[in-house]
């Protein structure tokens, strides 16, 4: 496609801007500059900071879970109620309040305007509101730890009838606060999501065609579109469940006898809730995964000094995954009692999604072929992502294939699978991305040695947690069991395996202190990075100031002449050509 030496066409300047540069909102006080900020870069840091803070709560919850599973009953504080509350809060926080928020609200806000060459998001005020509503949602969720009865222990899927009945911990205030918090989160997310989508579509600078966008932007863009379509499913489910709980409606509640008493519910459908929940819940997996896919593509390409292999295929794979992921939700419900004929449909769609996903994996590793690989910390995290994602992805072929799911569903196999594929893998990408973009955000490098220590403990440790866990599931150990007790089919050696997993979990959790130390220490003592320490091509590295100032670009917006993967182009003086560098003589880049 491209060869600078082959140029036959004359380079043509991109067309003039369709829309005049719009004057930005300029903050006048410290408060509007740093707190109620309308600058996407500040909002990004607020989002990411909040997401990481609440994520630490989830980390502590995971220790509670693991301690109970390894040493049942040894810690008096962890009774059955507290165990289920920890399981529920860990899951919900990690999936929604941490992963979704940090990828879209954090990286989306920071990177979209810079990568597409815009001065800011198109709706800065709404963008600000988005963060504050998200913060409110997080506070409401946190408040549920302090109300009578504590947070809900319904499991993160919140399945009725159990979620709002007295046999479940936190059925008083906990569940109400959880539902209210989710409703707020979705309101806040919708404001942000619209911004991300419209900015990508309307805010691109001259020359930045859709097929020149870095894959990071493609991933975040597709995820934001999906989230706008999928979150309403959760929204209505939460509203209806809240009505069932508070006003006694029966959207999801059939006739029920509890402790010999007939409850006043009748005619509702518990399975309807599951459909609504997973109509959101499955796309949610890809709402987290697609930004990770995009980011990891850029990390690999930059640090291997090579164009991403098969860019167009990568874009279409993202689009295909986005579309398919809207029609696979039933694979979470193979044994839910829904019409069994659905099994055929959802197994076909689910296994079909393996194809574009596999293509992405091939293209990542093929990018390494004949590359010039620098083992920087971001690159190591990207490689760790490939291992954990492939490992977690292939177990999806067990669970997606309806009949194989039957014995494995609701066992520890499922827990191991989704942690590997949408827990460990995306979190490794988040770390890689922070090591990669920290210099742009702060102007200083993170310490590489600490970064590498952090990587190896996190990667190998997390693999040691979740790889063996699959085998507990194969054995038949069910998930969501406070204690397994004595069961004939589980050998005593399984207890030893549980202790091993818990030890690994405690070590990996504690090792994150290295990361936090690095982040805070490097703020002042890190090596100054300059504007483009990785010698990367995409626009965010070409800003006149580092960290980028208000409005990102100084007087003139950048003009884009090529795609984001012009690494090691033959004939080019260096091994990278920034997207906005004037065209080489005779160059014909995508």
């Amino acid at each position, binding site marked *: 496609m491209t060869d600078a030496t082959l140029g036959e066409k004359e380079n043509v300047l991109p067309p003039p801007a369709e829309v005049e540069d719009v004057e930005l909102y300029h903050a006048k006080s410290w408060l509007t500059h740093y707190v109620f900020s309308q600058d996407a870069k500040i909002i990004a840091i607020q989002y990411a900071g909040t997401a990481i803070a609440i994520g630490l709560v989830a980390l502590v919850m995971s220790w509670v879970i693991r301690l109970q599973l390894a040493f049942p009953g040894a810690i008096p504080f962890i009774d059955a109620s507290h165990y289920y509350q920890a399981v529920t809060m860990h899951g919900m926080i990690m999936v929604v309040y941490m992963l979704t928020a940090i990828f879209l609200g954090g990286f989306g806000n920071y990177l979209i305007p810079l990568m597409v060459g815009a001065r800011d998001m198109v709706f800065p005020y709404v963008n600000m509101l988005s963060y504050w509503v998200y913060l409110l949602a997080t506070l409401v969720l946190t408040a549920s730890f302090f109300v009578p009865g504590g947070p809900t222990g319904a499991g993160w899927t919140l399945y009725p009838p159990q979620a709002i*009945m007295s046999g479940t911990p936190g059925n008083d205030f906990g569940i109400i606060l959880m539902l209210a918090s989710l409703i707020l989160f979705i309101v806040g997310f919708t404001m942000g999501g619209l911004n991300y989508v419209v900015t990508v579509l309307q805010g691109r600078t001259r020359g930045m065609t859709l097929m020149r966008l870095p894959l990071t932007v493609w991933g975040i863009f597709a995820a934001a579109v999906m989230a706008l379509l999928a979150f309403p499913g959760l929204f209505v489910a939460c509203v209806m469940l809240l009505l069932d709980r508070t006003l006694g409606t029966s959207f999801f509640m059939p006739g029920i006898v509890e402790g010999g008493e007939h409850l006043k519910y009748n005619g509702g459908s518990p399975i309807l809730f599951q459909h609504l929940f997973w109509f959101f819940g499955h796309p949610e997996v890809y709402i987290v995964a697609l930004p990770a896919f995009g980011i990891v593509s850029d990390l690999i390409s930059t640090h291997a000094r090579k164009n991403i*292999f098969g860019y167009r295929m990568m874009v279409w794979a993202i689009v295909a995954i986005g579309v398919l992921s809207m029609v696979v939700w039933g694979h979470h419900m193979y044994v839910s009692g829904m019409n069994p004929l659905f099994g055929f449909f959802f197994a076909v769609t689910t296994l079909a999604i*393996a194809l574009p996903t596999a293509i992405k994996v091939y293209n990542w590793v093929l990018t390494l072929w004949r590359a010039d690989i620098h083992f920087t910390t971001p690159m190591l995290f990207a490689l760790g992502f490939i291992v954990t994602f492939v490992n977690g992805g292939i177990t999806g*072929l067990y669970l997606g294939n309806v009949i194989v799911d039957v014995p494995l569903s609701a066992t520890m196999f499922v827990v191991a699978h989704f942690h590997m594929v949408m827990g460990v893998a995306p979190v490794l990408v988040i770390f890689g991305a922070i090591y990669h973009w920290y210099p742009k955000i702060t102007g200083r490098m993170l310490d590489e040695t600490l970064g590498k220590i952090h990587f190896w403990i996190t990667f*190998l440790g997390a693999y040691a947690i979740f790889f063996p866990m699959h*085998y507990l599931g194969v054995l038949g150990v069910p998930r969501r069991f406070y204690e397994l007790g004595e069961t004939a089919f589980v050998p005593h050696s399984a207890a030893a395996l549980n202790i091993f997993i818990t030890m690994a979990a405690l070590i990996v959790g504690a090792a994150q202190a290295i990361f936090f130390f690095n982040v805070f220490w490097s703020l002042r003592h890190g090596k100054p990075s300059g504007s483009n320490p990785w010698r990367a091509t995409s626009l965010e590295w070409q800003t006149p100031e580092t960290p980028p100032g208000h409005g990102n670009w100084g007087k003139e917006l950048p003009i884009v002449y090529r795609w984001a993967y012009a690494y090691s182009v033959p004939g080019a003086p260096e091994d990278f050509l920034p997207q906005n560098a004037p065209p080489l003589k005779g160059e014909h880049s995508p």
Partner: protein
Amino acid sequence: MLVALIMVAVVAASLLFHFLSPWRMTPIASNWGYIDNMMGATFWITAAGFVAVILFMAYCLFRFRHQEGRRAAYEPENQKLEGWLAIGTTIAVVALLAPGLFVWGQFINVPEGAMEVEAMGQQWQWSFRFPGADNRMGSSDVVFIDSNNAFGVNPNDPRGQDDILVSNDDLHLPIGKPIKMLLRSIDVLHDFYVPEFRAKMDLVPGIVTYFWFTPTKIGEFEILCAAFCGVGHPQMRAKVVIESEDEFKTWLAARQTFAQSRRGEAAHDRRASAQ
């Protein structure tokens, strides 16, 4: 160099763990050996993919690591290679999906003449019902549940009078006969799960769900609940005893029918009111 070696070590350790692990599927005790075969086939296909991708990656990490003067090749795409990889992956996926769907077809089609047995779940115990002499299960609904009708069997349905009730006790089943489990809950979601049978299905309040299996091994097996149902979830257990047809019949004959349980209760009530 070191990175490539560690990646190879991760693959090797994973394979070793798999083959040396003492944690394997419980010995099967039902007709669903097909499911175990599918699991085996899925392992080989997916493990081959995992090993190939990670070893290829490790090779690249070793071979194309940065060295002084190295410059990467420039190759935006290679449609031929991408096409072949897509075709290969499609074949692997179809190879898993087609037999999987075939077995699923068997799973959801209950053989003619399967014996119907109802499992009823409530927080946090199991009860069971057999259709009785007429071989037909009486209708039921939570509205009929009261102090002397714990199952909610319709008292006006003649088919239900001879239904045999096993309240909060172990389940006995004959070996070698297809069993259609009808599943019913009176409060929250539960799931009838016997690891050795491989099959499982949710109990959903408001509707009756089902699945089928044929027990193939004499013995006692544990019934667990596999759908989170509140704080007592792990304690919701019972035993299923697989025995010969004769032993099963003897056991069944000693259980109360619905009508008997009503008469007993009614007599008990009369005595209580006479005092």
